[in-house]
């Protein structure tokens, strides 16, 4: 994995969803030292992530309707501020899928590492989610791929591995995903898409159209 450079939070925008008091004051002061721009809100309802890069939230008094997104689907990193260790509160906090935690009473020590951990975790998680979506899409396309392999096998009298290898190398040559190529073959019930795709690939008016044709088709294959 790529190593991050010097962690720098200059001009990063933070929202603190927590009642005013010592904890908020310590957090605001330390975030200021770290170069962040900070806003606080309490009480909060249907908070929008718009205009913020990270949100600190009160794990003790928080509730789902505070946030303007589906539970666990925060579009930016969340950092939980935990005081109570009551299992119900911990359970609710975990449901928000925070990227880092800080234990109250807050002190300056720990806030910098929590930020570094949160942004790192969110980046890794986002990348993994994208990968999972991609794999899911390919899994859904599996019957289509099997159908195309069978067709290639019968047309060319080769075994299934050779048929798959051929589809893969053709897909790479045509710069489409294996799944997209197989979908075309299955739809037409023939191997003509190998030819038509190659021809349309030379057409400057529609070179990328097919790449956006479906979720499974917008990334080139590779096992």
């Amino acid at each position, binding site marked *: 994995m790529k190593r991050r*450079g*010097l962690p720098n939070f*200059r001009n990063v925008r933070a929202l603190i969803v927590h009642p005013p008091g010592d904890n908020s004051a310590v957090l605001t002061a*330390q975030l200021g*030292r*770290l*170069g962040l721009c900070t806003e606080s809100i309490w009480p909060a309802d249907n908070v929008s992530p718009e205009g913020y890069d990270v949100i600190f939230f009160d794990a003790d008094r928080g509730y789902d309707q505070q946030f303007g997104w589906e539970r666990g689907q925060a579009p930016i990193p969340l950092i939980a501020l935990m005081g109570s260790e009551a299992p119900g509160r911990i359970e609710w906090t975990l449901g928000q899928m925070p990227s880092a935690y800080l234990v109250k009473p807050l*002190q300056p*020590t720990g806030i*910098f590492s929590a930020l570094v951990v949160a942004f790192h975790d969110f980046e890794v998680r986002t990348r993994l989610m994208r990968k999972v979506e991609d794999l899911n899409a390919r899994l859904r396309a599996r019957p289509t791929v099997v159908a195309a392999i069978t067709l290639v096998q019968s047309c060319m009298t080769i075994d299934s591995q050779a048929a798959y290898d051929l589809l893969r190398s053709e897909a790479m040559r045509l710069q489409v995903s294996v799944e997209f190529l197989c979908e075309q073959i299955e739809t037409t019930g023939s191997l003509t898409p190998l030819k038509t795709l190659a021809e349309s690939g030379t057409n400057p008016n529609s070179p990328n159209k097919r790449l956006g044709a479906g979720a499974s088709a917008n990334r080139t294959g590779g096992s």
Partner: protein
Amino acid sequence: MHTSENTQTTPTSSKEKISIGIVFSTTGPYAGIAQELQNGALLALSEVNADPQFDFQLDPVILDPGGDLEAYQAISRKLLKQGGLKHVVGCYTSSSRKEVIPVFEKYDGLLWYPSHYEGFEHCNNVIYTGASPNQHMVPLMSHMLQHFGNRAYCVGSDYIWGWESNRIMRECVTEHGARDFWERYVPVGSVEVDKIIDEIVQSRPSYIFSSLIGVSSEAFMRAMQAARQANPELTCNVMPVCSHTLSEPELARLAPDAADGHIASSVYFQSTPGECNARFIAGYRARYGADMVTSANSEAAYNTTHLLARALQKAGTQELDAVKSALYDVRFDAPQGRIWIDPGNNHCFLTPALAVSNTSGQFDIFHTCDAPMRPDPYLVDFDAHRLGDAPSPDERAAQ
């Protein structure tokens, strides 16, 4: 653990006595540096006690943890819990500071920490009077990049000071397109440097960046000098050693030949011009010996103790909040120039300078910042990519 009474500074007047902890490891693996720190603190303390403007006498309680981390906690507890002290000047290594912070938080004491360090810390129970990384690392990196190139060979003592200094250097030269980068460590107290010297001679970096401390640094400098003699083309002009740690007491032991031609970054050099520094040097020599040299360490501890005394005087109490808010108004004319504490982060405004060492074991200063620089312990305002672009204000006049 060692306890001692310092008869020279024990107050004798009828003024109120305020006990101040002085905690430096004047025995153990970094005793030399700790002694410089303690010397600086006690010199300032004697000046305060002789100065009629103060309503009190500072009474030093001197304890030596001997470089043992566990002793640091025990000593701090003894001073704050049993002794009821509020203010302690002490610590050199970051590990010792980290060790005592929980004790200072628990018993609400204030640690006056006088060493330059790697930054990335803020504790309400610590006043950081030594240089932050933007005041010691950044000016040095900028100069080396602009004048020598990006092939940095980093050698450091194997603990957080060396690790973190080299990490910043690596980020910086990588940002400037470095393909070669060397990072080597020597255990604290070790003098095994031959393999490193061999590698340097073979790889011919643009410069060597040293964050070695104590005997390792001296052994390295001597071995480097021998390597230069064996390879006359490797002069200090071609491939210098640079450091943000190198100071006069170390140079004194290396002089004449091995002391010459190294580039140093510091907020204080003994050669800093001005009356305040002349007074400091004279006081230091009068107290500790005519052949003694001052350093960034002794100056920092000296400054710290003066800042503490002035804040106590202004506050009229030892209570932390009152002392801290009084401190934020204190301006002290230190040997390096005017200094003060940034209320936003409890670190110190200091004036960075760059110098090249000479055969008499002193530094010839070739660049000094125009004004005291705001401390930036988290390097918030640092942009590695801008370092090499800025027109260099300095000339290596001394070379």
